């Protein structure tokens, strides 16, 4: 029987991650006909983001691509990607991820039985809210919905905001009725989750990163026959590169679609304004320096230089 590779993810098939998974399936089945059978399960059909890594450790999922903050309990090092204003743009992110340090981070989950294969982009996060956010002081006293991460909580506390956790199914109503003031998301998430329909202002802050790590279980990966593993790996890397191209285009298209919808006003930030935010949130770096490692933070910062 062919080797079965189940690729479980939580987004739609028309997203960069979804397209990447399908491209991978196509490449592998072309190159290893009858030997490997890839099955892609989108939309959390198999397991949700919170359980997929555990299912992988049990050997029931072979590939997944959870967001980097989902690895919080597996390694502290990957939290470097959650730090606010660490990367100036996606090029810097890409440079860091491709650097020796960035590739080394893929191995940081090995101790727990997982193996990173590569990074796939979603994009830089934007701040959205019911009222316009220009200066850091505008965030004071406002309630922000965050995804699970100590750093993200600390980041909003730095500007006097109130970080809150609520599942997606509740967030939409809470934002709509103003029970929660704002949130942070990349353009593609704002668009697909329709947050721009309930958040009148989006500040183009590019303050943080939401990326995914393509991950497999060490046991499965090492168990692949020697003539198959390199082909699978090559196909996966090509698919990831393709997915990242799609991601860059999608970010542009979704940003434009949000502007065109007229439902939300996009606020641009001047360099001076941005600098205020950086100063306000930067103490978070120091706060998590011990957990993450200073050299790691420095290496990430260095990637801002071309």
């Amino acid at each position, binding site marked *: 029987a062919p080797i079965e590779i189940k690729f479980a993810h939580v987004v739609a098939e028309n997203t960069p991650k979804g397209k990447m998974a399908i491209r991978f399936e196509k490449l592998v089945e072309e190159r290893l006909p009858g030997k490997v059978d890839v099955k892609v399960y989108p939309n959390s059909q198999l397991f949700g983001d919170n359980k997929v890594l555990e299912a992988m450790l049990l050997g029931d999922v072979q590939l997944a691509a959870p967001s980097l903050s989902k690895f919080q309990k597996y390694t502290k090092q990957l939290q470097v990607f959650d730090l606010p204003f660490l990367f100036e743009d996606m090029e810097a992110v890409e440079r860091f991820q491709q650097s020796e340090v960035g590739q080394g981070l893929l191995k940081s989950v090995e101790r727990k039985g997982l193996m990173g294969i590569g990074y796939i982009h979603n994009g830089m996060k934007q701040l959205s809210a019911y009222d316009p956010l220009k200066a850091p002081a505008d965030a004071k006293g406002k*309630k922000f919905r965050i995804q699970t991460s100590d750093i993200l909580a600390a980041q909003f506390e730095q500007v006097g905001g109130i970080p809150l956790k609520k599942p997606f199914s509740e967030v939409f109503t809470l934002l709509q009725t103003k029970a929660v003031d704002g949130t942070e998301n990349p353009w593609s998430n704002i668009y697909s989750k329709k947050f721009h329909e309930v958040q009148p202002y989006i500040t183009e802050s590019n303050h943080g990163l939401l990326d995914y790590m393509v991950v497999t279980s060490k046991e499965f990966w090492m168990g692949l026959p020697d003539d198959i593993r390199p082909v699978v790996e090559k196909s996966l890397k090509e698919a990831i590169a393709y997915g990242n191209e799609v991601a860059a285009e999608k970010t542009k298209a979704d940003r434009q679609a949000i502007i065109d919808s007229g439902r939300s006003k996009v606020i641009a930030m001047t360099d001076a304004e941005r600098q205020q935010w950086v100063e306000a949130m930067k103490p978070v770096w120091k706060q998590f320096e011990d957990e993450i490692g200073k050299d790691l933070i420095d290496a990430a910062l260095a990637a801002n230089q071309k």
Partner: protein
Amino acid sequence: MLSRLLHSLHWLEEAILRLLLVAITLLVFTETVLRFGFDTGLLWAQEATLYMAAWFVLFGASWGIRSGAHIGVDAFVKLLPDFPRRIAGIIAVLMGLVYSGLFVYGGWIYVSKIKMIGIEMEDLPFPKWIALSILVIGFSLLAVRLLVLLKQLITGEADGFNHADEAKESMKLADEINEEIGMNNGGAR
């Protein structure tokens, strides 16, 4: 002796279940009040709520057997004469035992694996395997309950999942309440 033990188990379970339901409700309520009234939140509340809900359901499944809470389609079984109906009941309970056995086994492997890897819960400071252990506990209790029911089916004390003595049991309880509070409509529904 055994029946006394089972009786106290039932009582204890019900107390724990009531506590869980009230705790979940109070936690969500408190979180809402804190957010609206005091501009603050409890970052651990979401995880605590959801895990308590899981404990509530998995812990309660077995209690539900004894209390006749679980509904089924009894239209066909009711058409059968007494003896074949008990046989159907015995088969159903045996299959239920297979169900709980498979979950106890699967849950055990899952919990052991998470314990071995040693990850914590997201926001609460507990090892995750402890939170997950309800899988093994809950389905083991379910198996115990099904075994008791099996014995009752074999001896003819019960004739299906909604066993006959349940109604008497609750009447007895209602009477007890009535006596204590000295009213005559206290336990009526």
